């Protein structure tokens, strides 16, 4: 089963990297979103997944082995929110850049080198 998820991770990474390598900055940002989705999934996957046993405990259920590992969930949650902040900032940066220079083409960005 997990093999499919693994393939999904691979596809998401492939799509992300492909998008990241485009010349448009917008596509770059979308690529980053894909890559961060892939990474989140990878983290989630790597720590062992359990179907249908959410990490809730109460007076009766306190046994760790019965439920899914809550820590990677918390980690991925944090990563998702951080990624959200970064993506929005990137969007704003892109917007400002377009307003200042009038181009979306990454290949035009050559002034700060050489």
């Amino acid at each position, binding site marked *: 089963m997990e093999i499919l998820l693994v393939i999904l991770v691979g596809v998401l990474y492939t799509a992300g990297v492909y998008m990241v390598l485009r010349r448009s900055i917008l596509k770059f940002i979308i690529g980053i979103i894909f890559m961060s989705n892939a990474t989140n999934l990878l983290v989630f996957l790597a720590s062992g997944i359990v179907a249908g046993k959410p990490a*809730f405990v109460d007076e009766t259920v306190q046994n760790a082995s019965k439920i899914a590992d809550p820590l990677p969930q918390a980690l991925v*949650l944090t990563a998702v*929110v951080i990624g959200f902040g970064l993506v*929005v900032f990137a969007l*704003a940066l892109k*917007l400002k850049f377009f307003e200042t220079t009038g181009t979306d083409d990454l290949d035009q960005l050559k002034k700060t080198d050489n």
Partner: protein
Amino acid sequence: MNSIILQLAAKYVRFLLIFFAFVALLRGHNYPGGGFIGGLLATLAIVYYSYAFDWRSVQKKLFMKPQGYVAVGLLMILLSFSPSLIQDETLMKGIWVSIPFGLLGQLKLGTPLLFDLGVFMTVIGVTLLFFFTLTKRR
């Protein structure tokens, strides 16, 4: 969008979203939810509102500027550390008090809840700031 149907619905949708935002926040310790989810829900209420009307009328509905929410949120987060300092415990240790609540049983309040509330406020402020700065420049 400036559509009348959306405007008609706005009142109810906003109320429901904010209500559920608080529900998610307060139940977050025991059921799905929490500061982030609550904050994002509350923001979406305002986002919807600003789609139905224009953003100016939305800003009037807010109690304060988004920056204010951020500041209040951060302050709450800092405050949530203070009980542990006062009690001379390890930093960020959760301090809990139980308030008897009549028939409903006991209500447990603790610094983690305050922390979550701070996160909630901050997330609202932050997301609104995102939204407004990206919108305003039409």
